[in-house]
């Protein structure tokens, strides 16, 4: 019997400070046993438990894409015991990763469709995974238009800034970067909250367009009515939830919304599914 609580041993391969407040760092891991990389085969949208002996585990969305080989990557906000300790760790340190866990964005359903990705703040991690996945030359032809609406408080709080700039230069993805405010006179992109930019820039709704939305509760709260006004059907609005988790495999009992476990039946749900269940997240 495989022990589902046993993490794969990994080594931190690189640490990048993502944001100007230094609260977000990206950790790149390589598996100590190269065979584990295959066993960890994942889809964009899944998460894993980062496991530090003596501290505990935290559920974090996978920021790397399944198309990127040789490493896995996670961007972690410094919040509690485990994440704060992780922020003190350096390249070469050994820890564990348990997963992949949960479901993923509905890639099969979205095949041949337009996709608008709407993200805010540090919830952009599995969205990065999704963008890199869709832009992979093997995959780009399988999707229609790709729009990305991504906002942060300030330019310095945007994640993956070099990649954002590179995507801006491409013609097969439409980027709509925004910040709440900036005093940078050279700022070339939008200023304004994500819901307002969504209203202006989101592609027209229809059977052929999916919206994936991921961000802080306040952004979700004001973006959903915009999408509804634009005519996006509830089963075309895809959301990824977070809840406190321990086991990550649907057993410990805390992350449920109704009978669904965010860790196992989610974290990805359509708005239609969420409307049918108590929304305790």
């Amino acid at each position, binding site marked *: *019997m*495989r*022990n*589902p*609580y*046993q*993490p794969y*041993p990994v080594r931190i391969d690189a640490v990048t400070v993502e944001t100007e407040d230094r609260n977000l760092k990206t950790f790149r891991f390589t598996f100590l046993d190269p065979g584990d990389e295959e066993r960890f085969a994942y889809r964009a949208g899944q998460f894993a438990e980062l*496991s*530090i*002996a*003596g*501290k*505990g*585990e*935290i559920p974090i969305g996978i920021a790397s894409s399944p198309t990127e080989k040789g490493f896995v990557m996670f961007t972690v906000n410094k*919040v*509690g015991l485990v*994440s704060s300790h992780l922020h003190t760790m350096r390249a070469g*340190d*050994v*820890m*564990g990763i348990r997963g992949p866990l949960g479901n993923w964005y509905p890639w099969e359903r979205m095949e041949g469709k337009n996709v608008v990705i709407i993200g805010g703040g540090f919830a952009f991690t599995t969205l990065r995974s999704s963008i890199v996945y869709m832009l992979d030359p093997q995959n780009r032809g399988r999707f229609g238009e790709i729009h990305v609406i991504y906002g942060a408080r300030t330019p310095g709080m945007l994640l993956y800034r070099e990649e954002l700039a590179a995507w801006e230069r491409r013609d097969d993805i439409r980027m709509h970067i925004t910040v709440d405010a900036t005093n940078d006179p050279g700022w070339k992109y939008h200023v304004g909250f994500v819901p307002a930019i969504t209203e202006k820039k989101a592609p027209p709704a229809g059977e052929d367009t999916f919206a994936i939305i991921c961000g802080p*509760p306040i952004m979700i709260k004001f973006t959903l009515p915009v999408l509804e006004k634009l005519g996006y059907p509830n089963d075309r609005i895809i959301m990824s939830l*977070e*809840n*406190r988790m*321990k*086991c990550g*495999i*649907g*057993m*410990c*009992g*805390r*992350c*449920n919304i*109704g*009978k669904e476990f965010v860790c196992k039946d989610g974290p990805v749900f359509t708005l239609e599914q969420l409307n*049918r*269940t*108590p929304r*305790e*997240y």
Partner: protein
Amino acid sequence: MRMLLIDRRAWQEGLKRAAGQYGLIGPVKEKEFHSFRPLKPGEMPDLAFQNSRLSPKHVVYPQTEPMFAYTLDETREDRHLLKEVRREIPPRAVVGIRPCDAKAFVLVRLNFDTPDVQDPYWLRAYEATTFIGMGCNAPCSSCFCTTAGCGPFHEEGLDLLLADLGEAFAAKVLTPKGEAFARAAGWTAEAPAGAQSAFQERARAAEGRITSFVQTEHLKSIPVNDLYNASFWEEVSFSCINCGTCTYSCPTCWCFDIQDETRGKSGVRLRLWDSCMYPLFTLHGSGHNPRGTKLHRVRQRFMHKLKYFVEKYDRGIQCVGCGRCVRLCPVNIDIRRVCNMMNGFAVSGEACAIP
């Protein structure tokens, strides 16, 4: 189905014999109350009890259980790596378990043994255990097992079911595990027809002594959000002090926490019982808590047992009617009343709470 007759002497001698092959666990009176614990050599289970104060779920699912061990000693090659702690569990038998508590393991198994993931700690312990049930001749006034998918002589989850006939026990052999235990105990005498009918008679009489019931037939079909938004939760949760007694004493509550405990340079990752009654259970790192009020938490407990579980597994409610939470709740919150209110919701709406 085979039925054995075990007289008092054969019972005592049989348990002594079986102890050579099984670790025996049974009810023992300690201070005021009975609890299930390993029997000492020669010690007999004390069957003069209605039921143990706490459920015997710890036999399979200890309140605290090491999952992994690790070292933080930087000079060691294996530092920071988690090594599975494998509890060696030789065959053991729980002697005298009540049918409700045995059935509870069957329900809990649905959580720990799923088609795609299995919990090795729970499952190994469960599989190593033989359950020797003792039918309830005298159920408590707060027992409502017969309407909770169970009963005083319910067989599900048991390997042997005994009826106390006074001079002797009649034992129904329910599984190969039960057969093996009977063999180890040397119980071979077939029950004569009289004992067989006495067994049935005890079971019927016991069922007749259950005087407390729940209604569950509408729980599955009432829309989940209607029940969730029902106005009675305010009143149901008003007196709750979130002490968690209900969840700790419940044989079907399985929620747990995982914690690392380090001493010096080494430590263990533990699994511990947790409770949906506690605010920390769902508190996010950000400070947000999706079940931040006691109303949320009380509602979660009842909705889980009486609605989410019912819908998810279609195996009835996540309750066996043992009545422990009813007896032990310090503020008299009664799952029977809440169950009937929920079940009556479709019919009576918000009009009245069924007392």
